[in-house]
Every structure is written in C-alpha cells, then in structure tokens.
C-alpha cells in the first residue's frame, strides 16, 4: 500500500451560529418524523435532505443512495437561545473574569502584558487571585456572579437569561479573550450559547423497523422531536403575546431538552426517559466509557478475515503451526497479486471448482469480480499480470492467532496454517503458556493477513519461534511442560535403555533417521537418544531440581536426568542464544515428540493407590496430629492462665494465634515428610512434583495425609456464631478443629465441620481472584496508556511521542531484556535457516 495522503492534524473548534447555518442542508421546521405512509416529512427530523436510511430513496442533497450518501447535517433555529450545558463551567469562568459593565478582563493592562509575557502562565489562578473589587478599566464595582449548575447564571441575585449571557460574552474584545486562553478566531465565547442547533444526519440516528412493521426511532431523534416541539410552542406563545412567565417557563423547558440532548447524565438534572422508563442515551453517553464511541469503535475496530472456535491440542504439529478446520479454510481468503511467475498457479486457482480455489478476482482497475461458474472462463481469459486473486486459505499461509485477554504481546502470535480435519483450531500444547490457554473450552481467534507488508512484518516479528524468549525476563515462555518434562525425565534416566526397534521408533518420531552405534552393549541408552537432539557444540553443567549434576559436553548428555528446570529453561535458552530462534523451535519440536512418545510408552497416571498411606504411616500421621492437639491445648491453657509468652508488639491473643498457626503449619510439614518417605520416588505423583512436571508435594500431602489449617484473611477461622465458628463446638473453644484445622485428607473425606471451614477458605480465594482480576486489569490499562508512546529512537534513547527524553539510553545500557542472556562477547546468534545435519 502506498500512502499518498495522510491526516496531519485534527483541530477542535466551536461552531458559530452562522457556521451551523452554512453547514446545514435543511432547516428543521416540523417536530415530526414520518407521515402516515411512512414517508419522511420534508422539514421533519428525518428530512431526506439529510440523507436517507430507507433503501430505494435518494438523498435530496447529494443524490446518493443508502450506502453512498454519507449524510448531511441540518439545523434547528431556536426562537430563544439556550446555554450549551457542557460549557457551563467555561461560561462561568468568563463571566467571573470580565466586567459586567465594560466587558473587559478584570486585570489591569499592566498585568495583561505581564501575563502575556509568561510562557506558562496560570491564567485562571492569576485572575482568581488578582481580581479586583473594582474594574481596573472602567472603575465600576464588580458584583458577584453566581453559577447554578448546569446552565443558570445570576448577577447580584438577578438571574441572567441566556440572551443576557450571550450579549455579555459577545461584547468581550478579542484581545482580552486571548489573555484568558481563548482563540477568538475559532472559539468566540458567545458561540457557547446556542441559537442554531446542529442536527446530526439520519445515518447517525437510524430508526429500526420492528417485526410488527412499526418504526422505533433512535433516542437522539426522540430528543430532537422534544426540542422542536417545545421550540414551536415557545414561538407560538411569543407571537401570541403570552405573559413573560409562561415564556420563561417554556424557555427553560427548551433549555432542559437541549441539556439532556447533549448529556442525559448532567448533575442536578433529572434524566430524560423513554416511554418504557429507560433513561435515553444521548450524545455524551454515546461517546463515553468502555462501550462508548471512543473505546468501543475508534480504539478497537471490527475486522473481516477472521475466525474463532474452540482450540484443542495437537502435539504432532510444529509449535508455529495452527491446525485450521477445512470449513474455516474454505471461507477465508488471501489476496494474491498475479505476476509472471505465479500466473499459471493463479489460473489453476481460478479454474478450480473445489477447495483450493479463487473466490474473487480484482482487475487492475480495482473492479472486483466473483468467480462463478458462468464468469470463470471469461475471467480465466482476461487474467494477467496486475490482477489480484483472492484464494482460499491453504497450508503455509501466514495468520495471526490470538487469545483474550491479550495481556501481553505474545497473546497474539504469527502461525503457519495447516489445514486439518476436525472442527477446532489446533495448537501445539507447548504454546499454551504465552496465550495462557488450556483446552477446557477455550476459544481463540485467527486473523488472515491481507497485505504483503503486514505478512512480512508478522513473519519476522511475530512468528512463534521468535517469541520463545519472553521480553519480560529473557527466559523461555514457550516451553515444554507437564508430560513433556515427565517424558524427558524418563528418557534420560540412568536406567533407561532401548532395544533397536524402540530406539528407531523414538528417533524417527523426532525426525532423526540415522541410528547411532549402541552405547550399552547392543542397547541404546535414553541419554544417548536425547543427546541426538542437542547441538553438537552445546556444553553446560547445571544442578537439577533433584540435586544431581547434569553435565552436557559437546552435545552429549553425560550424566543427570533432565527435569523441568533444565529442560524448560536452561538447555532451551542456551540453544537459542547459541543458534538462534529457529534452532530453538526445532529443538522443541523434536524433543517434545520424543518425550511424548516416551511417556506414552512408559505410561504415566495416578490412581487412588497413589494417595493411600501404609498403616504405619497413617498411624504416624495420627501421632503427629495428636501431638499438635496437645501442643495447641497447652498453649490455650497458657493463654487462659495468662502465662503465655507475649510476642513483642502483639497482644496476648495475637501471640496465641501466631503460635498456633506455627504449630499447625509445622504439623502439615511433618505430615509431608511422612508422606514423602512413605511414597518414595516410585509414586508418580511425587515424581511429577519433584521433577516439576505437575503438582506439588503439598497436593500429595493434602490428598494423602491432611488438608491442614484453613484460613480467612490469613488468620484461623473465627467467624460464624458468637464465640465459635459452628454450633458443633463449645463457645470459646480455641482448639485446632474448632478454628478450622482440617485433619482429614481429601482421600479419606472431610468431616462436616471441616467441610464448612474448607469452604470458607475456598470462598475467600474465589472472591480474591475476582477482585484481583478487576484491579490488575485497570492497573494494566493505565500503565499501557501512560507508557504506550515511549519508543527507542535511533540514538537508543527512549522518548515519548512529543520527543521528550525519558531515558538517554534504554535501561541505562541499551540491552534488550530479550537478548540479555546472550554472552556479550559472543557473536550475534546465527539466525539463518540452516538445517542441522542429521546424525
């Protein structure tokens, strides 16, 4: 796309009544919309000169039809002017700072020149402070101006009518206006009093036809009808010479309608309501807030060429692919520019009548033609360089993939299409962490890129393999987790070895087709097979979560079993720093496939037996709990005798609670030791917890031994009845069970009282989660809004959109957090697409 014209600036100004009349295509004279034949009334609020919304009618101003006419403004001539309610404050400020007699600003000439010379003068404040009791220009005493929100002004208790206000404002000289920050060329203050009201075109307030055939007008139209009706009545009363009181009442009513027309949430004004009692949505309400024009339609726009369905996992596709259902692929199109190299291919698409076919062609003159059976031959004959065809989505196309909430940039990444059977979008589970996706019904969005520039940018900047390292901390965010970790652990265990058939299978699934020499007397060790996935020049040592030393030398895993820390982070990170992002992708793709095959063959599951303690262990747990109860009872007795040691700065009661919390948490920890010892490293649940694949030791403890102390607001449960949490306990019982200690395990089941206490703690965490999401969401919106314009310039300084320097050197050292892990002495990682030589 070649940009030829750009909007350089937008200026905000006020409309003068003359300007309104000039802009207007029609003067509204009738307070009505449609006549009995449901035809728009001339001079009514849907006058056809304003444009049309009914199909078949033509706009009387531009001759355009429904789609082609953009709509034209009209105006209402108010018999008596009214104050624009949103500018009430501004008018008040001007009235307050000018003299009622000579209409000059209430500061002396000397001060005016001084203020004008100041760069950053706080004019409002200056006038408030320096305002004299006597006008410095004409010497007249200054009476007090009062402002009754939103539209009433009074001078020395006498009400100022809008006409008075207008005349006052009109008499202020231009030079004085400049002093108080007005630009009289664009914003004369008397324009703030409306005498000609601009009426937006019908297309802004379309009516809808109900099923019954009745028309339902837009809220704005309703409001405009109200204004017109009262305006006419006012006119009739003035002409009939009605008493001043009646005229002023009607005038005020016009003011009310105009006020609510602009903002139906004006303070001190009852909102105008629809017949049904619902408050009307008028101009302000249309713009404001999350669902308003700005945030809903301007900052976020609806798009075409997008798809959304449920996502499901597919570990066999690459991490930068996305599985697309055939139905979706057939519905979305990609524009292809026809050139001499792809002409034949394009012709094939156009001539095809099934799946990869062209849906539309666009001629060089911009005319779009649908490829139909009738038109096909003709299009085929004319098709040549300079045409564009829109063909269906095929394998290898570039799309953007997104899951809401889009909290960070890796919530939208670029994937390559792979059309696969099924009705879900499929992703490799390894890319779940950046999207924060799971497969319990999550839906995701896919966007097909429509321009060549965007496609290139997406591929270079947003492709999944370029996002493996998170810009947040410089470590992998796209990483194999859970079963992949278990698989890698089983694979690289010291005992693991495979016969020829198994070894071949594991290598083949990872895309390695050459079998190395066996290293264990005719058998292949798992470590050897894993080593084949590593780059030849990778050497590193690290300590594993199990305390082993993992040693990799020249791409060979010498000792240690791979667990989450080494797999997810260190090895992957090092490969990327040494060989670039694409090597990282290949490592993930190959190693996860191998690991997955290993867990699938080994089998990894949990059962009730995993959480059944031996009788001895159960007894031990009971002993531990008995000990705890005795300790707590002793502490409670000490507390009641006031012999308990007081902690510094705490009351006796707080000291007791502190002590008991310590005892209960120690009890659970002790229980944990029993569980760990009893289950040992053969228990799958414990294995997974230890290698960091899934779950924690705490989960196992809670299921096998005891759930432990329940807390509300980080304290033992105290709420419920007077002096007790539940009627099952004696009042003032401070013992373990009475205050929320759950001694049962999830496996054995909870007692009713324990169940209640557990539910209390559970509810608190649910409530907290809900609050936290809302609070952190708003904080992030503010953060983004405040920092979004800050960009690294060519000199590596950070500046905002005005060009103000925020940092002279980004982060003080200009290091990209994403690349911070790269050794500074090393050369740039080799980002070329270089296929690793097979082993």
């Amino acid at each position, binding site marked *: 796309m070649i940009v030829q014209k750009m909007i350089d600036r937008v200026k905000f100004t006020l409309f003068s009544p003359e300007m309104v009349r000039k802009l207007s295509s029609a003067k509204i004279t009738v307070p009505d919309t449609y006549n009995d034949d449901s035809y728009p009334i001339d001079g009514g609020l849907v006058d056809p000169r304003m444009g049309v919304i009914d199909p078949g009618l033509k706009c009387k101003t531009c001759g355009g039809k429904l789609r082609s006419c953009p709509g034209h403004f009209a105006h209402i001539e108010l018999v008596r002017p009214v104050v624009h309610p949103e500018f009430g404050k501004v008018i008040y400020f001007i009235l307050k700072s000018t003299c009622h007699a000579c209409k000059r600003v209430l500061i002396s000439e000397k001060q005016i020149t001084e203020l004008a010379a100041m760069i950053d003068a706080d004019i409002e404040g200056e006038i408030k402070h320096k305002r004299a009791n006597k006008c410095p220009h004409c010497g007249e005493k200054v009476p007090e101006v009062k402002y009754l929100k939103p539209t009433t002004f009074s001078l020395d208790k006498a009400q100022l009518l809008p006409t008075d206000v207008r005349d006052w404002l009109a008499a202020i000289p231009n030079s004085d206006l400049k002093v108080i920050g007005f630009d009289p060329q664009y914003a004369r203050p008397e324009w703030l009093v409306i005498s000609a009201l601009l009426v937006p075109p019908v297309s802004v307030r379309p009516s809808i036809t109900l099923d019954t055939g009745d028309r339902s007008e837009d809220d704005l139209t309703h409001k405009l009808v109200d204004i017109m009706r009262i305006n006419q009545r006012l006119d009739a009363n003035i002409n009939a010479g009605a008493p001043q009181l009646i005229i002023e009442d009607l005038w005020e009513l016009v003011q009310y309608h105009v006020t609510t027309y602009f903002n139906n949430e004006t303070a001190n004004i009852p909102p105008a309501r629809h017949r049904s009692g619902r408050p009307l949505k008028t101009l302000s309400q249309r713009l404001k807030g999350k669902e308003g024009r700005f945030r809903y339609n301007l900052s976020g726009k609806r798009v075409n060429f997008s798809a959304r369905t449920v996502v499901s996992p597919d570990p066999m596709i690459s991490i930068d692919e996305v599985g697309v259902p055939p139905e979706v692929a057939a519905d979305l199109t990609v524009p292809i520019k026809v050139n001499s190299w792809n002409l034949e291919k394009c012709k094939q698409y156009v001539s095809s009548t099934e799946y990869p076919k062209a849906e539309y062609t666009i001629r060089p003159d911009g005319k779009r033609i649908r490829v139909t059976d009738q038109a096909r031959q003709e299009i085929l004959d004319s098709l040549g360089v300079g045409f564009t065809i829109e063909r269906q989505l095929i394998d290898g196309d570039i799309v953007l993939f997104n899951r809401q909430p889009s909290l960070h940039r890796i919530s939208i990444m670029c994937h390559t299409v792979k059309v696969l059977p099924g009705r879900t979008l499929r992703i490799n589970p390894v890319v779940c962490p950046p999207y924060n996706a799971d497969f319990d019904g999550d839906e995701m969005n896919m966007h097909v890129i429509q321009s060549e520039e965007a496609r290139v940018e997406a591929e270079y900047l947003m492709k999944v393999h370029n996002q493996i390292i998170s810009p947040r901390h410089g470590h992998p965010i796209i990483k194999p987790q859970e079963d992949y970790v278990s698989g890698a652990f089983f694979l690289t265990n010291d005992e693991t070895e495979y016969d020829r058939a198994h070894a071949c299978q594991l290598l083949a699934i990872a895309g390695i087709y050459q079998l190395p020499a066996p290293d264990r007397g005719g058998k292949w060790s798992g470590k050897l097979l894993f080593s084949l996935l590593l780059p030849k020049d990778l050497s590193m040592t690290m300590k594993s979560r199990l305390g082993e030393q993992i040693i990799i030398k020249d791409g060979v895993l010498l000792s240690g079993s791979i667990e989450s820390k080494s797999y997810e982070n260190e090895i992957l990170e090092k490969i990327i720093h040494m060989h670039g992002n694409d090597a990282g992708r290949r490592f993930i793709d190959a190693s996860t496939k191998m690991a997955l095959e290993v867990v699938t063959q080994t089998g990894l599951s949990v059962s009730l037996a995993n959480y059944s303690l031996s009788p001895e262990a159960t007894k031990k747990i009971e002993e531990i709990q008995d000990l705890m109860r005795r300790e707590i009872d002793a502490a409670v007795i000490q507390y009641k005798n006031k012999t308990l040691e007081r902690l510094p700065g705490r009351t006796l009661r707080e000291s007791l609670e502190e002590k008991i919390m310590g005892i209960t948490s120690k009890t659970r920890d002790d229980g944990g030791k029993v569980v760990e010892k009893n289950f040992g490293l053969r228990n799958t649940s414990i294995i997974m917890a230890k290698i960091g694949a899934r779950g924690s030791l705490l989960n196992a403890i809670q299921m096998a031994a005891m759930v432990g102390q329940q807390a509300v607001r980080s304290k033992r449960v105290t709420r419920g009845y007077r002096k007790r949490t539940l009627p099952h306990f004696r009042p003032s019982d401070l013992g373990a069970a009475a205050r929320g200690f759950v001694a049962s395990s999830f496996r054995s089941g909870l007692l009713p009282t324990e169940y209640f206490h557990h539910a209390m703690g559970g509810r608190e965490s649910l409530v907290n989660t809900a609050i936290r999401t809302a609070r952190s969401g708003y904080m992030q919106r503010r953060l983004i809004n405040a920092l979004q314009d800050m960009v690294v310039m060519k000199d590596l300084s950070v500046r905002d959109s005005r060009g103000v320097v925020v940092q002279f050197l*980004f982060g003080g050292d200009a290091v990209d957090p994403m690349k911070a892990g790269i050794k500074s002495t090393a050369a740039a990682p080799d980002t070329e697409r270089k296929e690793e030589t097979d082993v």
Partner: protein
Amino acid sequence: MASKARSVDPGEAVGIIAAQSIGEPGTQMTMRTFHYAGVAEQVPTGLPRLIELVDARKEPKKPLMDVYIKEELSKSEPKVREIAHGLESTLLSSLATIEEDFAQKLIRIAIDEKTISEEQISLDDIKKKIQKLASVSEGEEKNVFVIKPTKTTSLRNIRRLTNKLRSLHIKGIERISRTMIIRNADGTYRIRTGGSNLAAIMKHPSVISEKTYTNDIQEIERVLGVEAARQSLTNELKQVLDMQNLNVDIRHCMLLADAMTMDGKIKSIGRHGLSGEKAGVLARAAFEETIKHLINAAVHAEEDRLIGVTENIIIGQTVPVGTGLVKLKMKM
C-alpha cells in the same frame, strides 16, 4: 553500551513492553498484606502495593523505615534498643488525660507524673510545648494545666483544640509511632520503625544516614529529590515483584520509574498524572473523562498533531512505533 548482539532495536516499543511486563503478572499476584510484627500490621505487598506505587499516593498506606545504626553502637542490642526508644514519638495523649469541659469552656490536662518521670520529660517542657498551641493557666495541682479559650470560642473550636492537644508531639521523632529491633545477618542490629520521617531520622547522630530506608517515595522526593525518588521507585517495584517470585527484568521497572519522574516531580500513572498530560486530545479523550477533554479542546481551539499511538489508531493510520516509525520514500 551493549554489544550489537544484545542491543535493543531502534523503534522497539519499550514503553508498551514495560507496561505489559509489569501489568501481566498482576493477575498472578496475591492480595495479601504483610505483617511486620510490632511495627505495622497489614503492610500492603503484591498487587495493592504495586498499585500504590504506580498511583504515587501522597503517603503509603503503612509507611515504615529501616534505620541502620553506626557501627560501634549497632552491635549492642541494649544500645540499639535505647536509640530506638528515643526515636519513638510520644504524644501528649499518652502522657496525660485530656478532658474538655464544654460548660465552662475549658480544657483540663492532667499529666501522669509517673509516666513522665519514666520518659524523663519535665513538666516545664510539656508546658512549653503546649504553650505553642494555646496559653496555659496553671490548674489546682502542679501537674494539671488548664486552657481557657476566650468566652466567644465556639464549642467546635474547643473540640478541635483538644484534638490538636491530644496529638501534640512531645518527645522523639514526629510520625514515628513504633519501633522494633531486627537482627541483621552480620550480627548487628537495625531498627524498623512504623511511620516515616526521613529528614529527622537522617539527622539523628547515631544513624548511618545514607543507609536509611523508607518506603515512602513521596517523602524521599521531598527530602532527597527526584533522582533519589526515581531510584527508590525502581527498587520498590522490583522488590514487590521479586517478593511474589515474579521474574521481571529490572529495565522495565526502570523505564516505569523514569517515566513517572521525567518532569522533575513524581507523576502518577493515570488520569491525574502521565495520561492526563499527554499531548493528544484524542488520546486523552479515549482514555478517561472523554467529554471533559473534548470540551476543553474546543474552547481552546486545540490541535491534535496525531503524534501518539492512540490518535493514529483512532483515525486509522500507521502507528509511530516500531516499523511504523520508519518513513521511506522511493523514487519510481
């Protein structure tokens, strides 16, 4: 300067990345408060503290300080305890019972002589302090002061004066409500205080002023200036995230701190701070207080030069960030 391999790319939208890097983990943070035994309960950590920092509140919810004592004294616990006790602010209300007599329009202050002898304060000292607020006439007994406001003083003003007297600072350092002793890793002791008064603590002769810590950023700005405030803002942000085991690169925190302090004073993130002072009318209108910004723009005939991100999204043009920053003209 960073080597080329590690350098940022010009055009990189580091602002947005920083905002996302700090904001995204917000959902994973706890809302729990932290308990510093004996000094302050419910010190916000996690998300509430992060919001507090970003809001640039006038005073943190629970201000506290860490005071390091000069080497020779810091090894002895009793000495440190003595210093700590001296720091604690003593208010008149804790030394005396203050009663107001609305019928006779007077305030009676009965000093507890036992307490003041323990605290080593003389009656005269107290009298002098009270006299700064109101004239004192001696009561029936030696330890009773009576304040007789003029007959015309309204009852409300008497109540106001009583409240002032109650919170009258007599001894120690103002705003330091509690102290406690913490043993450092090297065996020395430091003092943690509830309440913060950086200027006064730093002047204390036994205190290592340059090691003194407070969590009140606004106070750091007042006492030590923006540069110090910027640094401590960075530290606090990083510390809050670290405490939640969230790994966020320090550069993101630095950018946020720099943005908040770039004008020489601390500005909050939000409509009253950075966002409210942005250049573009459209950008401000799209954030919050839409109508207000449009109205003011019209009155002052403001011009939006469309230099920001939001403005260009609104009108549908390329955003001046990243590849959108590069302009290219081709001779055809």
